[in-house]
């Protein structure tokens, strides 16, 4: 089973949920946590352990100016403005390139070939006997998160139980993470911003056909608008976590709620049963 934890709005508690759900599950089974928030991975803060790092590369074009006839077809093809062909010179802007390979295909002179460029890393560690932690990390200055997410997820491809922590928002990195997941936990908070971005995130999961359930975090008890939205859209509120100074303090120290307050393990175990039902997996 593959679960994603997403939110729409940032800072609602995705990582807190993913880390505690995984920790609770490791009491009885093997779990792989994948940090797909590759611009700002932080799951490793809750599970410090020695890690093995692997480079992730992406192809970028290299122009052979001895063969190039400066026809400009590659520039015309490139939707991202990464290729500029002057009268006797080609300028390539690697940070604009999306590694689509189109320029190599349209070049009538075979003057363009691709070479790998480092775009990020994946790290893998075993912080607990039954826990694998995989983190993707984007290289500073590289704007393309998707290939790193793909590489991180691939490392978990054969693992039976995988929890993916997504980036905030609803753009490509979230879509890439949700791809292939059996269910998605959407973590929201008791604010108008939380509800607004939850609506966007629900739209994404619906379009991708990934069943979703909701967690209301930082709840001040005034969640009527969120609850009504969930009822209107046939979404279950699977868990409500109160606005609580102690929970915040535990989290800020890099500790796990389920370890410091073991009574929470029951709530996360119940959450997992609900996720399994969402995913259509009999547990």
């Amino acid at each position, binding site marked *: 089973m593959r679960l994603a934890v997403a939110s729409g709005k940032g800072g609602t508690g995705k990582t807190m949920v993913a880390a505690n759900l995984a920790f609770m599950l490791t009491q009885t089974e093997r779990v792989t946590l994948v940090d797909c928030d590759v611009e700002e991975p932080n799951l490793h803060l809750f599970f410090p352990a020695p890690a093995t790092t692997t480079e992730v590369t992406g192809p970028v074009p290299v122009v052979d100016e001895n063969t190039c006839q400066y026809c400009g077809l590659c*520039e015309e093809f*490139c*939707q*991202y*403005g*990464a290729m*500029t062909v*002057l009268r006797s*010179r080609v*300028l390539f*802007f690697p940070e*604009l390139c999306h590694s689509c390979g189109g320029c190599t295909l349209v070049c009538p002179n075979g003057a363009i070939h691709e070479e790998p460029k480092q775009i990020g890393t994946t790290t893998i560690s075993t912080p607990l006997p039954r826990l694998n932690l995989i983190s993707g990390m984007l290289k500073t200055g590289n704007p393309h998160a998707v290939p790193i997410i793909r590489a991180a997820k691939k490392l978990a491809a054969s693992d039976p139980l995988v929890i993916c922590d997504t980036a905030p928002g609803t753009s490509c990195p979230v879509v890439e993470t949700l791809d292939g997941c059996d269910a998605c936990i959407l973590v929201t908070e008791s604010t108008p911003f939380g509800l607004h971005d939850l609506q966007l995130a629900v739209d994404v999961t619906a379009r991708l056909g990934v069943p979703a359930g909701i967690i209301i975090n930082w709840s001040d008890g005034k969640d009527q608008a969120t609850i009504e939205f969930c009822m209107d859209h046939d979404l279950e509120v699977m868990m409500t976590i109160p606005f609580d100074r102690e929970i915040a303090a535990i989290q800020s120290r890099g500790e796990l709620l389920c370890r410091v307050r073991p009574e929470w393990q029951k709530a996360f175990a119940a959450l997992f049963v609900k996720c399994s039902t969402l995913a259509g997996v009999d547990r």
Partner: protein
Amino acid sequence: MKVCFTAKGATLDSPSEDRFGRAPYFIILESETGAFEAIQNPYADGAGGVGPKAAQILIAHDVKALISGQVGGNAREVLASAGISMYTYRTGGSVKDAFDQFTKNSLVRSE
């Protein structure tokens, strides 16, 4: 010599535009005759990489100098490689005013 101004509109009375790649209009003016042509920038609302593409418009029109408020790094590299000199004008006045300042040689050339 052809000089290009970034502008918010299509006439010489239009306010100048500080941004280069996302300028609504490029006004290309023949400095000897005063004749001009206004080109609507097709990349004004583009997602990304608009600088180099906009720079190609100037190259295609044989522009020799650009007067704009701010030119990004990628566009700057293309323009410099094509031998187009860049001058900074960002007081928000009209294209006509920018041209006056340019002919009086009071604009600072940016590298």
